[in-house]
């Protein structure tokens, strides 16, 4: 097969993903547009995403909807760089730098910084805290079954990820709620409900500055009183013979807070609801929980796709899916679409916990930025669903209240009864 290269046509695609209204709509509405784009124009040109933080500097952006092209972009970091930002709308450089640490770096610097913390997230290290996570999941479900009704997100989903990431860091318990709250703020700026009359930039700035402060205070705390935790290790770690600066460590704190909280939380909420909507799948899982939970979790994250998008920037002229991409242009990966690509998954809209192969993009499309916390997330999901399915069989969930935004697929609240 020879690749056809379309001449550069800078007309915007009529099926636009740019308006905020697109992201305020439902998953199903977006999927209809994505499906059309996957079939007809898998790499398409769009106006800059309607953002609220600053005026866009580009004329347009490339939107990538097929599974195969998302893999191609992810695995080719020399051409598709993260260093110029990974959010699909325009965010000021200062914010990227302070909030995203090695997520927005390329090459050796990315690798060195990632290595500093990645050792704490290997299967072996995570196995060491597995028991603690199990106990915590059990305690959370103790709390749940003692109630009759409430909000599932605050009662269950939010707690295990929050406990886990901050326990690893050694953050004092009385700081954790506040930190998790501001981690939410970092992904919620486009939501009117969260903003409550404030401008998006104010929400983001307050969340970021507060998280940086909590991180800086924690660094001082651990410097004065070292413990056997991730934070103490980070303070003493050296990259190329140099210690990290306090600013760099604070930025790590923000990255880990956001990555460790919102993603797993939303997977728990969305999966709890999926298991209710597909009772046959729940029954299948319960028939052999230990034997089926591992493949099931891959389906949980594919089906939920809590991280809907990330971006890269072309470092040189290139061709992707037959389109000519110019140096400096933005390439937006729609994981939400790639995870429903019928070329990669049979019956992609079906929640099927026994999919024989499940090469999903929920943790990214491979390459150097592939989710560092994926083992940790999987252990949390295993333990919380073990507890929920076995100990709260009468759990009934109501309608999820979704967050408006183009980054995480977040459930703000979801009522439950027992």
């Amino acid at each position: 097969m020879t690749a056809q290269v379309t001449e550069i046509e800078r007309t915007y695609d009529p099926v636009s993903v740019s308006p905020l209204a697109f992201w305020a709509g439902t998953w199903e509405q977006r999927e209809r547009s994505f499906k059309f784009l996957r079939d007809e124009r898998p790499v398409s040109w769009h106006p800059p995403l309607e953002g609220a933080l600053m005026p866009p500097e580009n004329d347009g952006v490339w939107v990538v909807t097929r599974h195969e092209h998302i893999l191609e972009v992810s695995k080719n970091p020399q051409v598709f760089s993260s260093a110029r930002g990974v959010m699909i709308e325009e965010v000021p450089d200062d914010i990227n730098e302070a909030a995203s640490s090695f997520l927005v770096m390329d090459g050796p610097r990315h690798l060195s910084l990632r290595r500093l913390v990645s050792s704490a997230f290997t299967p072996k290290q995570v196995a060491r805290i597995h028991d603690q996570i199990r106990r915590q999941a059990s305690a959370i479900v103790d709390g749940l079954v003692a109630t009759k009704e409430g909000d599932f997100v605050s009662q269950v989903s939010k707690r295990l990820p929050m406990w886990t990431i901050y326990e690893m860091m050694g953050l004092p318990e009385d700081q954790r709620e506040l930190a998790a709250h501001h981690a939410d703020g970092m992904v919620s700026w486009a939501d009117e409900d969260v903003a409550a009359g404030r401008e998006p930039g104010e929400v983001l700035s307050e969340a970021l500055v507060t998280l940086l402060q909590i991180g800086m205070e924690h660094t001082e705390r651990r410097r004065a009183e070292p413990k056997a935790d991730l934070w103490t290790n980070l303070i003493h770690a050296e990259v190329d013979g140099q210690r990290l600066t306090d600013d760099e460590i604070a930025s790590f704190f923000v990255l880990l807070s956001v990555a460790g909280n919102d993603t797993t939380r939303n997977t728990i909420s969305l999966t709890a609801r999926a298991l209710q909507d597909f009772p046959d799948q729940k029954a299948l899982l319960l028939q052999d929980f230990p034997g089926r939970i591992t493949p099931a979790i891959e389906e949980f994250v594919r089906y939920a796709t809590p991280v809907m998008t990330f971006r890269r920037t072309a470092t040189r002229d290139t061709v992707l899916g037959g389109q000519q991409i110019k140096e400096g242009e933005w390439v937006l990966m729609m994981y939400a679409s790639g995870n429903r690509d019928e070329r990669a998954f049979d019956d992609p809209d079906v929640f099927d916990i026994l999919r024989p192969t499940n090469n999903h993009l929920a943790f990214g499309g491979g390459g150097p930025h592939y989710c560092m916390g994926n083992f940790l997330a999987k252990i949390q999901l295993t333990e919380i669903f073990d507890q929920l399915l076995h100990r709260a069989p009468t759990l009934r969930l109501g309608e999820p209240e979704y967050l408006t935004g183009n980054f995480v697929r977040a459930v703000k609240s979801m009522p439950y009864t027992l």
Partner: protein
Amino acid sequence: MGFADAAEVRKYIGGIFEAAFEDPEIGPKLRDTGIVLQFTFTEPDSVVVVDAVKATVGDSADGAAPGAVMSMAADTGNAYWQGKVNLPLAMAKSKIKVQGNVASLLKLAPLGKQLFPVYIETLRSDGRDDLIV
């Protein structure tokens, strides 16, 4: 080394905005922001008020109340306009305090970036290498 007195602060930091208003590309964009921004500096004490609507740079907010007030040491201001200070990190360390509308400052960010080289060039051509960070 740093700024000798308030007049110098106004000359250089205020000067950035005077140059910006005159720039055919940056000027209109700056005016479009409609912002009235006050800088309150210490060491030396000085105030610079930028009124994007009237395209003026002064030393007090006569008339329009500022939409945002940024307070910092003059040294921090000098480094900021050379692109050497990260705003959220500086705010977290209370090196820069912002009262009022932070969101409007974020919207200024892309313009700010374009002004850094202009500022550095001004310092250089005035022989003020001592102020270059």
